[in-house]
């Protein structure tokens, strides 16, 4: 074999090279969506595409917005701060909470919105802190992979802040009865979804 004919050693090299390329390790972005813009934006997008986190935050923002501007401001700063703290704990001590936690946050916050509960200032603060710590901890555990980590968590916290700011500032000025009813209906839907989630969690044994 000579000239244009491929010799065995060359073929062997090509096969080995091909197998080497095929087995080349690459990043497995399991359960996360990457933007290609870096971990900060990945974290932001992760929150936006994770209804388990997004919906309870929306519910808390609606709840705080229904109660007025002071509650809205409190939620705006307490929730992201608690989320960051919980996230740092999650990054450090990886673990997880039962999926029932998510379901319970849906039911509790959605139910409070639906009933237009007249919460005290302290209760709003406590709810924001608990929600932030719990979901932040879950986020921290999820984002513990080296390519997201703390910067990704900052992206999530920025997204939380943005959503609370937008939703609460939308609801606070609502005065028309029908408009507030629409917000309460949204709360009832969130609670209903949470009830179904509790059932799913029990069925899957988690």
């Amino acid at each position: 074999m000579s000239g244009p004919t491929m010799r065995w050693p060359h073929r062997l090299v090509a096969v080995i090279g091909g197998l080497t390329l095929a087995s080349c390790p690459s990043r497995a972005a399991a359960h996360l969506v990457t933007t290609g813009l870096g971990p900060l934006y990945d974290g932001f997008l992760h929150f936006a595409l994770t209804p388990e986190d997004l919906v309870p935050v929306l519910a808390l923002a609606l709840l705080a917005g229904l109660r007025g501007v002071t509650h809205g401001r409190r939620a705006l700063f307490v929730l992201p701060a608690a989320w960051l703290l919980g996230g740092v704990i999650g990054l450090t001590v990886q673990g997880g909470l039962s999926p029932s936690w998510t379901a319970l946050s849906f039911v509790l916050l959605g139910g409070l919105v639906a009933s237009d509960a007249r919460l005290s200032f302290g209760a709003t603060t406590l709810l924001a802190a608990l929600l932030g710590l719990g979901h932040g901890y879950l986020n921290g555990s999820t984002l513990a992979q080296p390519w997201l980590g703390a910067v990704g968590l900052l992206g999530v916290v920025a997204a939380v802040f943005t959503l609370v700011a937008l939703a609460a500032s939308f609801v606070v000025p609502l005065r028309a009865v029908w408009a507030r009813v629409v917000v309460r209906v949204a709360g009832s839907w969130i609670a209903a979804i949470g009830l179904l989630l509790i059932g799913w969690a029990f069925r899957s044994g988690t």
Partner: protein
Amino acid sequence: MKRGPAGAWALALLAVLMWAPPAHAHVQQGQAAGFFTGLGHPVSGLDHVLAMIAVGLWGAQLGAPAIWILPVTFPMVMALGGMVGLLGVPLPGVEVGIAASAILLGLAVMSALRPPLAAAVVLVGLFGIFHGHAHGTELPAGQSALLYSMGFVIATGCLHGVGIAVGLIHRWLWGQTLLRAAGAVVALAGVFFMWRAIA
């Protein structure tokens, strides 16, 4: 065995094709499908659709606060029924209960029944349990339970919204007559569903 440059190119091409791309393992698989399955489920059965719309029609007939309390009550109690079903608690006569909901809600709209608000809420809530038990638990394998639930609840709420929007014709005399006729149609359909459930 002779091989030309084509053989080398083929091997090179094979090597490139075998290059491992980023393995986006499990990235949001089936998520959208779960949402759309849930969204489509309530509108896939006429019995469910008619009962949901009838709740909205009745709420519009009764006026505030029933116009929004009934549609708020139904999805929440329906979800409770779904949760009971998911927990494995059997509920006898589900199909009969769904058919009865169409009959009674249709009759309520037809006769422009005005019971105390609490009684209307209890009636609507009772039927919600049957609908939730029957429809809330049918998640296809591999799809997101959360997004299925979201789609299911949103679709149900939108059906109530359709009922309320149509029911707003109640402010006109001809609208009141039309609403009663619509209630009669729902009740008749309920009789058909009942016959089908029992037969």
